[in-house]
């Protein structure tokens, strides 16, 4: 039987936390890219495209993330794709994030006065230029606080990927707990590591929110 010292536990958890960080970053970046596409559909002029985007957002916001991950994990192999926990986790969280980010940014676009669009049009900009030069920069700027807030939610959500077998912080802690039988210490440490990752971001989001209020 292997003996785990306190530092062994900490070291192994910190090594596993790398994967939590990496997955969070991959999902955030992927989610931002896909979310941008969903946003284009959501604010487009044609009704059907807005409807499709609303449906997409409602679907991801109205079902548990765990189910989305399961469907990704068991569904993609049916399309002939070889799928591993990492791919399923990254893809699942990317789609999850895209729906939330698109909805956050749409709030920003809606909050801009109509005159911003009119001004862009009167300068002779076409639709995409208007979006790129005038609308989106402002929409992103005023939704920075909720975007950072969502990043915190995303980091916490990576915990669920342990259930589909992705070897991140929580899955590693389950294994360590099975070997050491010290759940109080192990899960306490895991909570602490998550706290250290999330708390600064939460504070940052709060500062942004306060700055926006003034």
């Amino acid at each position: 039987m292997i003996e785990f010292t306190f530092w062994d536990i900490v070291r192994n958890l910190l090594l596993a936390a790398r994967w939590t960080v990496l997955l969070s970053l991959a999902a955030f970046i992927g989610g931002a890219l896909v979310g941008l596409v969903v946003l284009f559909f959501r604010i487009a002029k044609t009704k059907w495209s807005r409807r499709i985007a609303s449906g997409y957002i409602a679907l991801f916001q109205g079902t548990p993330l765990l189910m989305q991950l399961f469907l990704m994990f068991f569904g993609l192999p049916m399309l002939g794709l070889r799928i591993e926990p990492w791919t399923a986790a990254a893809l699942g969280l990317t789609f999850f994030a895209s729906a939330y980010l698109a909805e956050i940014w749409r709030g920003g676009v809606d909050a801009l006065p109509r005159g911003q669009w009119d001004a862009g049009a009167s300068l002779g900009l076409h639709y995409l230029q208007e979006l790129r030069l005038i609308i989106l920069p402002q929409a992103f700027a005023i939704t920075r606080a909720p975007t950072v807030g969502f990043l915190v939610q995303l980091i916490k959500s990576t915990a669920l990927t342990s259930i589909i077998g992705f070897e991140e912080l929580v899955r590693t802690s389950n294994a360590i707990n099975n070997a050491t039988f010290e759940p109080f210490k192990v899960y306490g440490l895991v909570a602490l590591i998550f706290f250290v990752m999330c708390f600064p971001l939460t504070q940052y989001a709060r500062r942004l929110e306060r700055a926006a209020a003034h």
Partner: protein
Amino acid sequence: MGYSLDFGWLAGAVGAIARGAATTILLIAVTTLAGTFLSILGAAGKRNGPKPLRLAIATYVEVMRNTPFLVQLFFIFFGLPSLGVRLDPTLAAMLAMTLNMAAYTIEIVGAGLDAVPRGQTEAALALGLRPRQLFIKIVLPQALKVIYPALTSQIVIMMLESAVVSQIAVRELTYEADMLQARTFRAFETYFVVTMVYLGLSMGLRRLLVGGGRRVLGAGVS
């Protein structure tokens, strides 16, 4: 190579899915009541309590909001027994969900309390109401009305998050799905059907809360 979907197992699975859904509904009902109650106490304590209490509540809120629900659940279910507190899975799930939700709703209820104009309190005091009457009869109803939409969203989010309590073998909807797919070997179809049940539950729950809120609080929720 084609994969053909097969929903033939569904006829024999309706009972299990319904049982699971009923447990999920029970979990969220208990959590909603206990969580709202706890967050009213928490929000009131954070505003009017002595300094150590205020600090304790603030710490509690930060800790719960910055750690994953799954870890909180494991900590309560696997960790607490080493302190001599042994809970059965359903009770542990209810406790974890309530504590998690309260951390979010304390902030929400607090914002509602802040939104009630000071003059309301002064008027009630002038009418000779005692502090407790004043809080329960004057301030709280107005606060709840303001924050009702945010509270509704939080309850729906919590219902969706409750899927993870299957991991400590609470026999709710996701647990039943896990059992079904192990029996039928139709994992995708099973999770697809159960995902749709969750979608129906979340839409139904939202509608129920909005309708109920309009009737009881007269809250203008869309």
